[in-house]
């Protein structure tokens, strides 16, 4: 299976070469072979006697990151969707995309996505799953930005990237939590040890992290906002990634992990609320759109919400219905996207206000759209798969799990009504899509092109999908036993074979709900213009999009504000903040650890001379602050240096005293030399407030250093290593001046690099002066 997953990715590397070769074959034609082959590979597994299988390949075993593939009913269903729809989409794209486009890029991204998506559904290893998960985000980003000369494409691409990667990272956090709890990175082993996870105090956190990942990827409210903008991608991509496969990755994730979390009441509450709200909001908003693809995008959002809700219900029936609907949705929504693409391609616009009456001009497309929309609307006809799944959905809302929490009780009451509400609007937008495009008056003058029926090749792919709609509708149970049941079983954990029947009798509540939907739907469609002003109240101008845009603007502007506040470029402020921080925290630590100690024993005596020198140094040091003239300040600073060398003499350090004297003299000379030429700027007195701050910081810091110095001196636990130097200086070092022996022998390395420092300084000064002079000459 490793090869199956990686082949698209590897072959993607060849695409640029193929597409560069000068020939007349569309790049899509060789590409078409890949998903077809994969589809054939997976279709062999379909059958009633299917058993889950696993294959493992080592990657990074020491971190528990391995290609552990696990093919069960759920992953098989997804793998077939990915490869099957993938093949149809590639076929469709051959006619949709002109060979003048950068086809190489397109197919590389598409194949990359195919690998990634297969990887997600087949991986049992959470980290590998996460790897592929992010790869789908990346390929989706590139595909949405395929026409990146459009501002809107760039906007949509970035939006989808940020939202889905946010979710991905959150999911990653959840995965790490799970792996820390269970000590494994295999989902199946986690499911076996669900007890451990359920008993962990961090389980809700892990669940929250993972659900955030699922909700962002599957465009659940309020994270759905990226999906409508993703419609900037070429239509084959919308049909493939943004309706049939990638957006279902979130559903897949929830389904995969529901055996672990299903017993947890909040799982039901959160997932069903997210799902049902998304269902209602998506279908409600779809009616308000004018772009064909936007209608379909909101419709996808709403359908995803419906499936998510069913996964949240967690009953056997609901899971079965969810899995069934994943398949159904892929068929009818895929075909509708392709029809929308055809209309766009042939009529030159997707704006439903300018379309209409195309039925006579594009009869085939109209017929395809008819099946697709009727199935989506759930019209009770025995050859439409959408009706079956809608009925199952209604049925599942009537038998919700019992819980103790008050929210659960509330949800059990309202969900059936919300389901009907959402479905009514589903009905409305389905017919709105169909009649707005193909019915009504022709408005050919508003179209950029004169529309005509699409070439046959372009119609094949949607036709196959519509045939799927009908075949599943006619023989639902044929698919049921073959793989839907297996898929549902791997989610629910137990056998869930349900017979799907068309007719339940008038007495069945689900059928009554369907009738309500149809009746109310027809009423609303016919009066759409009268009530559409409602959209100016709800949502009005409120939109999650505004929040996103504001957040992005805030990221840019807010951070700029904060940063210009921090990064003033003023050395003084930088130093003040650095010093303040070091002072406060170090002092805090001193207090917290009782670090200050003072011990008056074992001190050297105090003599008048020393005191006098100390006082002179202090006076001179303070003098550097108060001297107004530059020259004065330099000289006073020199006094400090000479004072220090005097101290060195007193404290029996002749070498130091000598060095200090020489260095000080040269330094003062250098100071004078450099500042002789400078503009005669007086030392301006800073403001009083600044002076106070400066004063406090400097006195505080000096005091801190003194305190540490005294404590360090008073903590006399060990003898110094210097004793060894005194002992061995003569015998091993061959010198009597111990300081010199240390410098040249014992710590010779220090001295070597000390000289290096001087050497570098000399070179640096030389180049600093020279580089300028030469330029001045130019």
């Amino acid at each position: 299976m490793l090869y199956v997953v990686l082949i698209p990715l590897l072959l993607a590397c060849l695409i640029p070469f193929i597409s560069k070769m000068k020939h007349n074959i569309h790049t899509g034609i060789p590409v078409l072979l890949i998903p077809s082959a994969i589809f054939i590979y997976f279709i062999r597994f379909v059958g009633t006697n299917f058993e889950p299988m696993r294959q493992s390949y080592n990657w990074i075993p020491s971190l528990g990151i391995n290609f552990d593939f696990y093919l069960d009913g759920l992953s098989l269903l997804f793998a077939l969707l990915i490869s099957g729809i993938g093949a149809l989409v590639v076929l469709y794209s051959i006619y949709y995309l002109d060979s003048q486009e950068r086809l190489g890029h397109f197919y590389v991204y598409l194949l990359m996505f195919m690998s990634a998506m297969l990887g997600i559904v087949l991986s049992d290893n959470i980290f590998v799953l996460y790897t592929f998960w992010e790869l789908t985000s990346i390929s989706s980003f590139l595909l949405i930005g395929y026409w990146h000369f459009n501002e809107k494409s760039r906007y949509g691409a970035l939006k989808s990237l940020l939202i889905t990667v946010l979710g991905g990272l959150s999911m990653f956090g959840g995965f790490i939590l799970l792996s820390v709890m269970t000590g494994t990175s295999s989902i199946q082993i986690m499911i076996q040890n669900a007890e451990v996870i359920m008993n962990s105090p961090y389980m809700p956190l892990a669940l929250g992290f993972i659900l955030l990942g699922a909700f962002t990827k599957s465009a659940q409210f309020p994270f759905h906002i990226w999906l409508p903008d993703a419609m900037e991608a070429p239509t084959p991509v919308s049909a493939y990634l943004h309706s049939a496969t990638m957006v279902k990755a979130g559903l897949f994730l929830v389904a995969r992990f529901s055996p672990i979390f299903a017993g947890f009441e909040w799982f039901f509450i959160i997932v069903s609320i997210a799902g049902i709200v998304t269902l209602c909001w998506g279908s409600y908003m779809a009616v308000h759109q004018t772009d064909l693809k936007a209608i379909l995008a909101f419709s996808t959002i709403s359908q995803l919400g419906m499936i998510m809700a069913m996964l949240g219900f967690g009953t056997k029936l609901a899971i079965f219905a969810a899995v069934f609907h994943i398949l159904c949705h892929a068929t009818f929504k895929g075909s509708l996207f392709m029809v929308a693409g055809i209309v766009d391609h042939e009529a030159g616009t997707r704006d439903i206000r300018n379309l209409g009456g195309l039925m006579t001009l594009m009869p085939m497309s109209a017929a395809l759209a008819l099946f697709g929309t009727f199935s989506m609307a759930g019209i009770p006809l025995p050859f439409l798969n959408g009706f079956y799944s809608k009925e199952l959905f209604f049925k599942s809302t009537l038998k919700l799990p019992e819980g103790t929490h008050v929210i659960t009780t509330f949800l059990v009451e309202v969900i059936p009504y919300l389901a009907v509400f959402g479905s009514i609007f589903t009905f409305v937008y389905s017919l709105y899509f169909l009649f707005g495009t193909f019915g009504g008056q022709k408005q050919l003058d508003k179209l950029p092109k004169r529309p005509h029926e699409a070439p046959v090749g372009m119609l094949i792919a949607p036709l196959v999908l519509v045939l799927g709609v009908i075949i599943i509708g006619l023989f639902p149970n044929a698919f049921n036993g073959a793989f839907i049941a297996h898929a549902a079983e791997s989610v629910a954990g137990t056998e869930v074979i349900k017979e799907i029947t068309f007719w339940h009798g008038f007495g069945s509540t689900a059928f009554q709900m369907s009738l309500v939907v149809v009746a109310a739907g027809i009423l609303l469609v016919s009066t759409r213009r009268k009530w559409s002003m409602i959209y100016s109240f709800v949502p009005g101008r409120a939109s999650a999009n505004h929040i996103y845009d504001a957040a992005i603007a805030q990221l840019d502007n807010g951070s700029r504000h904060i940063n210009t506040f921090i990064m003033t470029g003023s050395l003084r402020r930088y130093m003040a903040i650095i010093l303040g921080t070091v002072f406060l925290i170090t002092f805090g630590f001193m207090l917290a650890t009782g670090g200050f100690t003072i011990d008056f024993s074992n001190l050297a005596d105090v003599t008048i001379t020393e005191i006098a020198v100390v006082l002179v140094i202090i006076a001179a040091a303070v003098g550097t602050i108060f001297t107004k003239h530059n020259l004065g300040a330099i000289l006073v600073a020199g006094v400090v240096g000479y004072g220090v060398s005097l101290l060195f003499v007193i404290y029996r350090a002749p070498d130091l005293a000598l060095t200090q004297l020489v260095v000080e003299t040269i330094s003062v000379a250098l100071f004078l030399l450099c500042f002789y030429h400078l503009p005669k700027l007086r030392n301006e007195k800073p403001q009083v407030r600044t002076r106070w701050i400066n004063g406090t910081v400097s006195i505080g810091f000096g005091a801190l250093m003194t305190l540490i110095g005294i404590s360090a001196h008073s903590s006399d636990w060990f003898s110094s290593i210097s004793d060894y130097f005194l002992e061995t200086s003569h015998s091993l070092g061959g010198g009597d001046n111990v300081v010199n022996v240390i410098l040249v022998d014992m710590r010779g390395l220090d001295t070597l690099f000390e000289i290096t420092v001087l050497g570098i300084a000399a070179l640096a000064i030389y180049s600093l002066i020279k580089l300028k002079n030469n330029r001045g000459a130019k």
Partner: protein
Amino acid sequence: MNNLVVLPIITPLIAGIILAFFPKKLQWVRPLSKLFILFNLILAGALVWVVFTNGTTILETGDWKAPYGIVLVADKLAALLVFTTNIVAAACSFYAPHSLTDRKETYYFYSFFFFLISGVSGAFLTGDLFNMFVFYEVLLMASYALIVLGGDKVQLRESIKYVFINLFSSMLFVTAVAFVYGTVGTVNMAQIAQRVHEVDQQGILTTIGILMFFVFAVKAALFPLYYWMPNSYAVPNPVISALFGALLTKVGIYSIIRVFSLIFVHNVELTHDMFIWIAGLSMIFGIIGALSTNNIKLIIAYNIIPAIGFILMGIGVFNQFALSGSIYYLIHDMFIKSSLFLLAGTVVYAAGTSDLRKVSGLIHYYPVLGWLLFLSGFILAGIPPFSGFIGKLLLLKGALASREIAIVIIGLLASLLILYSIMKIFINSFWGEKDESIQPISLKGRIAPIVILLALSVFLGIGAEFIYPFIESVSADLLQPEIYIDAILKE
């Protein structure tokens, strides 16, 4: 005892001195410098091999036995970092002739370059606290020389702040070393560790430890001490920025790892908990900085701060996973930061401006450059399967095992925003309409070093199985300071 330990320090020193004699003869200097750095790379590789087969290898300089003389210690961490340093440096030396003007090259660029490598390697390898100060000065002095090379107005303005703040922290360093000597009577790190352990890290020692932490934190550009860094790293030539970004801040964070895994490990609840806070704040403020600007080079420079935050987070959490993560991240960041600086430099060169709003559609002319930048964004953000991912996985795993939830959430959000900050460059400057007015210029010689660095980064991720066992043994050693101490003090 093995003289190999000193060679990665001495070879660049000698190289730097030799090259200083005939700086104008670029036809000699360029190939020689490449030769020297490759030779040094081989030496560093040999050192890694020796250390990982025989364990910690030391060299007592001048044959003065430890703890009295200066001892150089090549433990696994130091050896790996020296090796990584040399890889980055080698890549930079191949990029340098294409990016620097001849005039800058003749003004001792290569000498300073080698002195910098020498100082960095020394700081990694020394086992003596005062000697570490000396090596710090070597690398800082070389960095001062490099940062002003050319002497533009802006460059001078930013570098003087850089010098002041680093000078201040150096003086604080020396004082802290003095305090350590005053309390435990030695400057040998192994012996300091031993003695600190004997008195159970009394309060004053913790205080001195924190003072020392701040010294290193200034060099490492941690919150709130990073002010000097972004602008001064963005002004010099890209090669120099790459060297700084990859090496200098890393020396600071290395010293924190060393000191707070070897010496001050007896009051972890207090010290290391604070590190986690600082790590989180560094991530937040670093990313704020990166998002605040439209200057491509500054975006990269600001991105150093959250990376250092990630590394510090592992030290703060202080368990096997987190520490492995820190080290993985450290090595990853050396590669990716250097390649990002080189990339940013190339983009600025190709675009003729460092403002990402002023240019668009570069991908039509520079597709390779664009895709390299795209890739590096994902590597930097820790998106699998690249190197940042492995480091981040280990760090977050360690943090979660120690129940540090808040820092994990900050870390995940920071990753997202890091990605955003790089994608901003890609989307704004590379995507967009083809601008017919652009005259594409040759990027000859600039792409190859970047490709090599990025390839190593990718390998560090995909080939983690080959790397991780080494890293794991590094962090296992770090968690047992006795290994280090015994290697030096037990004869």
